[in-house]
């Protein structure tokens, strides 16, 4: 096996890690307005991924850097071809990342609602666009002899690629719903479980359709048989996940959806091989593992580095998930940061909902707290304690 083939596998591994890990935190972001019925519930959901989302996103940064190092021609052609979609993805990831850190630092309900919207859109757009991008990679794009993209932006929005976008979207939503059921308690957990079943069924249908289309259109690939097997395995794992979540086995269901996303990613890369970015103008213009790769010297250096450090990454990231393994309930959520400390006179803050429109006022603190009461077991004492503390600050 050539080193370039090993690096094709490693790049596929990095994307797999990215989709499996950030897949569920995109799902949480997308489900935020559906599953989180009030501010405390939304905070529960956000805090299930709070400690880990940044580490999850680093898989993308590493995949990008590793592609630059091991397949510079692939990196250059792919990133310049997908210029506008990548701009949208990056802008989405920027506002989404800030939403985690900044959401709790404002004083008004409007502030938090805006960051909730940023979190939702910042999760939704990349969840769709990564699938669109991979659909186009598999389908091939209009690369000329110099490997420059000569198609237009709208060429990228073809039906096959859009189905790819719907595939990643439904997969990530189902994966996120299962994760929410696994990491929460009470009402959110019940609703997440129900939602996981429904979105899981949708994911099965869409994924099966997309993979069938993929296998039929790339049947000439070197490893078509392996890819078909992986595709079938992915759909089976999804079906198992739906059954498991229905039976209340959330841990198994999460393992199933994780394996399914890994298998879908593996099926896509296997179907792609030995191409890395096919040209629809002339197959001679296609980028492949051999004509896009770095020199053996560079690949050798990178191989040593990756084989030493990637296991460490897996180890300490795994430890992080162990440290934060506990389920989170509405009772676990401390009062909003801004109400715990007197950065402004308390009275000024209390007035703010009244100044707003009636609709805005209803989304603010006191009604949210009332709703938290039916948030499930353990929620009520927390709500009581919070209101007591608020009275003290007033």
């Amino acid at each position, binding site marked *: 096996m050539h080193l370039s083939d090993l690096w094709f596998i490693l790049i596929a591994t990095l994307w797999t890690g990215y989709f499996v890990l950030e897949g569920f935190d995109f799902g949480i972001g997308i489900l935020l307005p559906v599953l989180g019925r009030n501010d405390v519930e939304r*905070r529960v959901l956000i*805090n299930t991924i*709070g*400690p*880990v989302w940044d*580490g999850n*996103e*680093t898989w993308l*940064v*590493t995949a*990008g*850097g*590793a*592609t*630059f*190092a*091991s*397949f*510079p*021609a692939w990196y*250059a052609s*792919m*990133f*310049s071809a997908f*210029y*506008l979609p*990548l*701009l949208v993805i*990056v*802008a989405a*990831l*920027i*506002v989404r990342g*800030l939403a985690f*850190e*900044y*959401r*709790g630092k404002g004083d008004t309900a409007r502030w938090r609602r805006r960051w909730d919207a940023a979190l939702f859109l910042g999760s939704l757009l990349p969840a769709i666009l990564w699938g669109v991008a991979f659909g186009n990679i598999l389908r091939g794009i209009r690369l000329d002899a110099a490997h*420059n993209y000569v198609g237009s*932006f709208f060429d990228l929005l073809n039906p096959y690629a859009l189905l790819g976008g719907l595939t990643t979207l439904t997969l990530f939503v189902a994966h996120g719903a299962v994760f929410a059921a696994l990491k929460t308690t009470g009402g959110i957990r019940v609703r997440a479980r129900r939602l996981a079943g429904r979105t899981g069924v949708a994911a099965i249908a869409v994924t099966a359709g997309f993979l069938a289309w993929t296998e039929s259109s790339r049947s000439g690939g070197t490893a078509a048989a392996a890819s078909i097997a992986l595709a079938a395995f992915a759909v089976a794992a999804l079906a198992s996940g739906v059954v498991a979540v229905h039976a209340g086995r959330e841990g198994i269901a999460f393992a199933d959806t994780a394996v399914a996303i890994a298998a879908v990613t593996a099926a896509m890369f296997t179907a792609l091989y030995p191409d890395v970015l096919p040209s629809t103008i002339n197959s001679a213009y296609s980028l492949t593992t051999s004509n896009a790769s*770095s*020199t053996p*010297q*560079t690949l050798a250096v*990178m191989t040593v*580095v*990756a084989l030493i*450090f990637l296991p460490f*990454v897996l180890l*300490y*990231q795994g430890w992080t998930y162990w*440290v934060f393994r506990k389920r989170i309930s509405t*009772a*676990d*959520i*401390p009062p909003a940061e801004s109400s715990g*400390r007197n*950065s402004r006179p308390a009275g000024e803050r209390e007035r703010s909902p009244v100044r707003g429109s009636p609709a805005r006022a209803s989304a603010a603190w006191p009604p949210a707290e009332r709703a938290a009461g039916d948030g499930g077991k353990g929620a009520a*004492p927390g709500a009581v304690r919070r209101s007591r*503390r608020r009275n003290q600050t007033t």
Partner: protein
Amino acid sequence: MLLDLSRWQFGITTVYHFFFVPITIGMGFLVAGFETAWVRTGHDRWLKLTKFYGKLFLVNVAIGVVTGIWQEFQFGMNWSAYSRFVGDIFGAPLAIEALLAFFLEATFIGLWIFGWDRLKPWIHCATIWIVAVGGVLSAYFILAANSWMQHPVGFHYNPVTHRAELSSFLAVLTNPMTLVTFPHVLAASFLTGGGVVAGVAMWHLIRRPAAAGAGASAAGGAAESPAQAESVAAFRSAAKVGGITVLIAAVAAGITGDTLAKIMTTYQPMKMAAAEALYHTSQPASFSVFTIGTLNGSQEVFSIRIPRLLSFLAAANFNAKVDGIDNLQALYSRIYGPGSYTPIIPVTYWSFRLMIAVGMLAALIALVGLWAVRRGHQPRSRLLLWAVLLLPVLPLIANSFGWIFTEMGRQPWIVFGQMKTAAGVSAGSAGAVLASLIVLTVLYAVLGVIMVRLMVKEARAGLPDEPPAHEGEDKPLAFAY
């Protein structure tokens, strides 16, 4: 058009990203130091300082992290010809940076933020140290990549593939340019992080009379509550730690900057000539502190000069000959063919001076501030209050001028002597780049305003209160978003 838009976009997004990077690196170590002091002494003051500066640190880290994604992507998006040419060498440090440094930072920052009630204190303290070390590692690898653009080593040009290919990765990592740029950037980062810590602490110490209420201010703090006294003591410690960090870092930045100037004169003599707008080779060469001249810098009307200083900066010898722009232009035309090899002189001339001047001003303010807030003293100067507000800002300006100088001074090359910037740009449409330039500039501006407001709000709030004690099973998380 395409080239200009891509360059403006790279410049704007990179300068913006680099506001947050040095704060992250410098403050990371200072916050880690505060937490270590708490773990070792158990003294409440250090815990409060850790939490207070930790909040400021995180507001800054968040925006640094997210704007970093674009930094990596835009090489392929906007500079794909460059990426194809250099990927065999330039990609490796970027990938290693992500694998070694970014994973460490991103994972352990999550443990630090949320781990207060899940980890033993010393393990929790270790996580912030790991974040800080991750920042230093990332600086090393990205500077190895940048230094290779300034002074390419450890490669050969392959005429068949039309690209630069790796000969020795060790040579790339031990590039003399990297070895001096790295400590220079670290020094600047500590100057920046120390500036934030000291500036905020000194501001709290100086404004205290007003905050303590009208009656107490007249009595000079005689009627202080124990909590206020504790807060003053804590901020005095922070001012001392931050201020001394600034002073040491400023000296280190000066020494490493001087070394860097000599290395630069060896490998990029045009950049040194452009830093002084020195058109004619001189022996010895003087350094002008200030010049009024024509816009292209070719004729001067008035200047203040320090004799022989440029000779010393360039070659550690007050009598050394320094090559002028005209001579180097002629030399490069002979080697590389006809064309302009001269950067935009007013930009290089002023950015070089302002980098030094603004950095020195920050150190001066730190020195005065340290003296003013020493034990037993309560300064009331309004001027000083405004000056210490500049302490977190000035290093950012100096950093930006430093990068503008080093990148603009390399022009017209993107890789010195190997590839011109004009040849590195992507073949895409100018319209798309204009769109991204507008989107990113507006987005960055809005987020910058939000970020600064949050920093000010957190900084004004002062040290946190004692966390309320919770008993039993249902206590909430120590921290939640």
